[in-house]
């Protein structure tokens, strides 16, 4: 299942860090961040609960870059 989330992040490299952080989160099959559009596309593992996974994604992203935001 794929969902698109709005994000906020300052620099292109920070967006890459977010992408890495999101990919490493449990329940995420794949993630892509489009820095110019400020969108994160998350492909969830089968049976994962998107809301719960996204909370973890947000936490991991914050650890990678302080100033970022994921709007769930």
């Amino acid at each position, binding site marked *: 299942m794929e969902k698109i989330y709005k994000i906020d992040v*300052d*620099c*292109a*490299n920070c967006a890459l860090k977010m992408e890495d952080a999101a990919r490493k989160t449990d329940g995420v099959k794949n993630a892509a961040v489009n*820095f*110019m559009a400020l969108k994160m596309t998350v492909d969830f593992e089968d049976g994962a609960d998107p809301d719960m996974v996204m909370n973890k994604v947000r936490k991991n992203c914050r650890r990678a870059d302080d100033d970022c935001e994921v709007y769930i």
Partner: protein
Amino acid sequence: MTRKQKKGLFRICLSAILLIILAFLPLEGMRKLICYLVPYLIIGYDVLIKAVKGLFRGHPFDENFLMAVATVGATVLGEYTEGAAVMLLYQIGELFQSYAVGKSRKSIGSLMDIRPDYANTEGPDGQLIRVSPAELEPGTIIVVQPGEKVPLDGVVVSGTTSADTHALTGESVPRNLREGDEIVSGFINLSGVVKIRTTCSFEESTASKILDMVENASSKKSKSEAFITRFARVYTPAVCTAALILAVVPPIISSLISGLSPDFGKWIYRALTFLVISCPCALVISVPLSFFAGIGGGSKAGVLIKGSNYLEALSDIKTVVFDKTGTMTCGVFEVSGVHHSTLENSKIIEYAALAESYSGHPISKSLQKAYGKPLDKSRVANVSEIGGRGITAEVDGVSVALGNKGLMEELKIPCLDCHCVGTVVHVAIDGEYAGHILISDIIKPDAEAAVRQLKACGVTKTVMLTGDRREVAEKVSAQLGIDTVYSELLPGDKVMKVEELLENSKNKLAFVGDGINDAPVLARADIGIAMGALGSDAAIEAADVVLMDDSPMKIVKAIRISKKCIRIVKENIAGAIGIKLICLVLGALGIAGMWLAIFADVGVMIIAVLNAIRALSVKNL
């Protein structure tokens, strides 16, 4: 400017002024250090905080940490001015990047400003009521006044006007509309008040669909983006490791050779220069920004590209496969004759028009047009379409078969060939051959020029696929200068032909169609280009590139846009990596100091960003 940016600008100005003042003060020793720490901390406190946080979280190659190490290191080595100035320039670079990116986001956003804010419905005593377009059911009558955006797709029921279609098609000549014409959301009504009967809900309207497509352009990354991302991931650690080696190895080796004590200070300074150059921002921003600008420029010209991977693929298309009808020809057929008819010509056309009355195919429209009277659909029953062949129906209780030679063969009705070029519709009434109707199509005025210019753009092979008869197909392709033509294909055959072409060629293949019947082919080609897609949902969904109007020249335009964008991407990759590598070499040799390093870093980024924004301008392509 956002609040964050304003704050950044204020800090930059403040610390720059302080640094200039300090440069004229005769300070020494401890007092000098403390004085220089003030502007340094003003400009760099956030970087320092992030660096410490990053370290605790296990990100040693975080660019904040690297900047912190480089500038603190410079200060420890006694280069107070350099420490503060490098941080200042770094922040100027960050601010510029954030400003430029925000600016281009905004300008691209405003290009696609087709989102309607409201719709007018008419109240009981004729006054207009503003409502949200999302609330309206299909079939509602809405009123659009001059200067307003058309909020929903529909049909004009009263009034005449001209509409500005520029935001959707890139076409600057207004379109004239009158009763019965289709009107599409995203048009701007220019001259008269019109009443429209809506044909779809807000979510299904063209404007919503296009906005959705532009905003959620595929997250698939282009090869160049993937390359630069991978490069950035190894670049920073590699440069940092090099810096560490540079700080330790040369001084020890030189001291072993000369027998003097190692000169760590000099080499540590050079290593710190490396850390300044190690920030990957210029690399990482330049490529996606170029693609974003290229896609934005395309949508301004009526060429919607669904993702940077498609924009990239467009630039090395070598084979272009065209559908004939509606793509290279106008798709507006006119009845040019009735031959061998056993009944009166008008009677044959009447039967044909009625039998085809449920079909939206261009041929049936031209039959209906030739009939010229309102169709009484109650006279028609048992309509069945035979894909790629024709139609059978009962009209006034008489069975009518209508279609190509294939249909007549299937029904075992002998038919007569036509010697004129055009589409021949054979008619059989009550199982007896009743003659044929000749319908001709017109080649689009700029189709021939488009084929010629595609060749000039590097396309080596052009192919035309059509369900039409061989004579027609060959005549059209000869007129257009198309290399190969495959005719008399059923819809399924088109997919097979494209697959065959894909197998036989290593290069990228694009299929151009009008989205009617060819959605599977659009999906199968490397790049599916749908043309004249206003109002055709299937095409918008299946295609990778959507041309908003139906001029074949737009294909050329799309390829030129992508070539320009890819050239910019390549310039940026080569420029950014090249300059960084040169600075690394100069830094290692001690020729470039920290000053040059930060100028190179920020300068490269500014040049890359400005260069990327060039991709937005596509007017003269």
